């Protein structure tokens, strides 16, 4: 198992290196002159030359890449134009908010998606199954930014039930920093007022973000369960007299979860991407809204840093998924 884990980690390294090359190439191949961008719009040609020398843009590409590499390894992602602070610090500060949102969405998506998927499979070809199929196909067809706006329109503006934006009410002081996830921190420190408020703020963004994930998980769980039910060993288990409930709850589900869990790993990328848009709509102070502001202000260092970070987080999640996969299915670990 350890060897399996190490191997997975090692296999991610070239991907991360490739990611660095990709982000580097993005900056260099794109026609915009980064020095000009850095110097700002009113810079004189002399200033641009100066900046070019300062950042090493006049060096050969390979040297520049070396510089870039060293900076990244030292977690020096440059200074943000927009905030004037190091990008790395900005990101670190905003990461917990994004994690809170994506984990909440994932929890919601998996918590409802898996049971719904099993239900659809067990009630295969009934009206319930057809209804859920409409939901799963429709759920991924909704533009999340539009859905977010509609939810705001209805629950915040019309009914005034839930807050429109932000992570906490303005009057509320944030709970003591433990994990950076407000819902968790407030609960751990016994701040139930903050907990309630944080939860209310989290509700709409999390629901918006989870919709696509829930639809996808439902769908994959359904087809996974159906596929497993066709397997020879399930026929054998039935013939051996396993009761149907036990069969589905234990034996079939565990086999079909393999597909679902792989899917959840892949979904995490979609969630991070979705967070970009949704955070900016709900003014959620995470990486996503940071990225959007960076895009509007042409803050290219921040853009690249976010791209890199998302790639790293995504890779880590997928290593975890492989690990769980290896734990569920003993063949995986021995084969690799």
């Amino acid at each position: 198992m350890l060897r399996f884990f190490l191997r997975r980690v090692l296999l991610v390294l070239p991907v991360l290196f490739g990611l660095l090359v990709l982000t580097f190439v993005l900056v260099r191949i794109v026609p915009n002159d980064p020095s000009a961008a850095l110097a700002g719009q009113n810079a004189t040609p002399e200033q641009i030359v100066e900046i070019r020398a300062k950042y090493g843009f006049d060096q050969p590409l390979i040297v520049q890449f070396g510089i870039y590499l060293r900076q990244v390894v030292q977690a020096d992602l440059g200074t943000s134009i927009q905030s004037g602070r190091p990008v790395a610090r900005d990101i670190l500060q905003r990461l917990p908010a994004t994690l809170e949102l994506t984990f909440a969405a994932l929890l919601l998506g998996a918590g409802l998606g898996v049971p719904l998927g099993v239900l659809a499979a067990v009630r295969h070809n009934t009206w319930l199954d057809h209804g859920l199929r409409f939901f799963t196909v429709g759920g991924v067809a909704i533009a999340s930014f539009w859905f977010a706006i509609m939810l705001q329109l209805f629950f915040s503006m019309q009914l005034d039930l839930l807050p429109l934006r932000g992570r906490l009410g303005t009057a509320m002081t944030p709970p003591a920093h433990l994990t950076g996830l407000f819902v968790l921190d407030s609960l751990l420190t016994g701040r139930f007022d903050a907990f309630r408020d944080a939860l209310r703020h989290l509700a709409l963004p999390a629901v918006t973000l989870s919709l696509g994930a829930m639809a996808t998980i439902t769908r994959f769980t359904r087809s996974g369960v159906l596929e497993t039910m066709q397997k020879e060993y399930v026929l054998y288990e039935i013939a051996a007299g396993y009761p149907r409930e036990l069969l589905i709850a234990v034996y079939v589900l565990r086999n079909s979860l393999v597909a679902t869990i792989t899917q959840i790993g892949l979904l995490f990328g979609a969630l991070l991407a979705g967070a970009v848009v949704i955070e900016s709509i709900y003014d959620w102070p995470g990486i996503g809204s940071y990225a959007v502001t960076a895009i509007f202000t042409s803050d290219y260092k921040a853009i690249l840093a976010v791209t890199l970070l998302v790639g790293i987080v995504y890779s880590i999640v997928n290593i975890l998924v492989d690990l769980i996969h290896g734990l569920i299915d003993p063949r995986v670990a021995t084969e690799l």
Partner: protein
Amino acid sequence: MLVLKKFARDTSGMVGLVIVLATAVVAVLAPRLAPHPLDAYESHPLQRLQEPSRQFLLGTDNLGRDVLSRVILGARAALTIAVLVVAGAMVIGVPLGLVAGYHRGWVPEIIMRVTDVFLAVPQLILALALAQLLGPSLKNAMLALTLTYWPFFTRIVFAETRRIRVSVFVEALQGLNAGALRVMFFHILPNAAPPIIVRATIGMGFTILSAAVLGFLGMGATPPDPEWGLAISESRQYLPEAWWFAAFPGIAIFLVVFGFNLLGDGLRDVVDPRLRRSR
């Protein structure tokens, strides 16, 4: 043909097909179908933000333009983007996947590692970064989407090719001394077609969504183009009063993407060579 008969029995797939065909008709005939084709671009300050009425079935926007006409014209932009982006991504991705799947050695290794790098970042984020660096315009948005979507096809074609490559009929062809290109394009590609077709169909819907996000964030279409994402973005400051301004472009997106997804879902069961039957 058995394929058509089987597909015709799949209700939701048929619904999808109808939606997609209807969208295509609307996109082609857009200028003729729109009730106020001229009003779609020109601003009419006097009739701004009017509620849906008999004259403007879906109301008017902040510049007094007919929302229905702009939604209809938006279909054209959406379909163009979808078709061009998916076609472009297939042109890049499918041959790469075939080559990487069929051969062994460092060429496939490099192709697949590059694919992995692209897949390690969510497509939308990569496309956003690329679109920003290229400069906001519809053309650049399409380029950015194409350049970030091909790895999906490479991945699928690679997996399919690896699977089919070791199948007995390919070995039999190699036994007959068939050339690599012949096996790849005449035999493996058709056998890999079902998942590619499904992916392409669903990819169209996915691309429409991504393009709408780019438009919404100002990285795609530019005003005054009638694009759905852009329209929703413009509508935000007139909420909650002008709900129609935000609601209808979103419903249009949903309908079209829903159609593509249903169609792709229905095709999944149907594109199977076992349904090919001689007459």
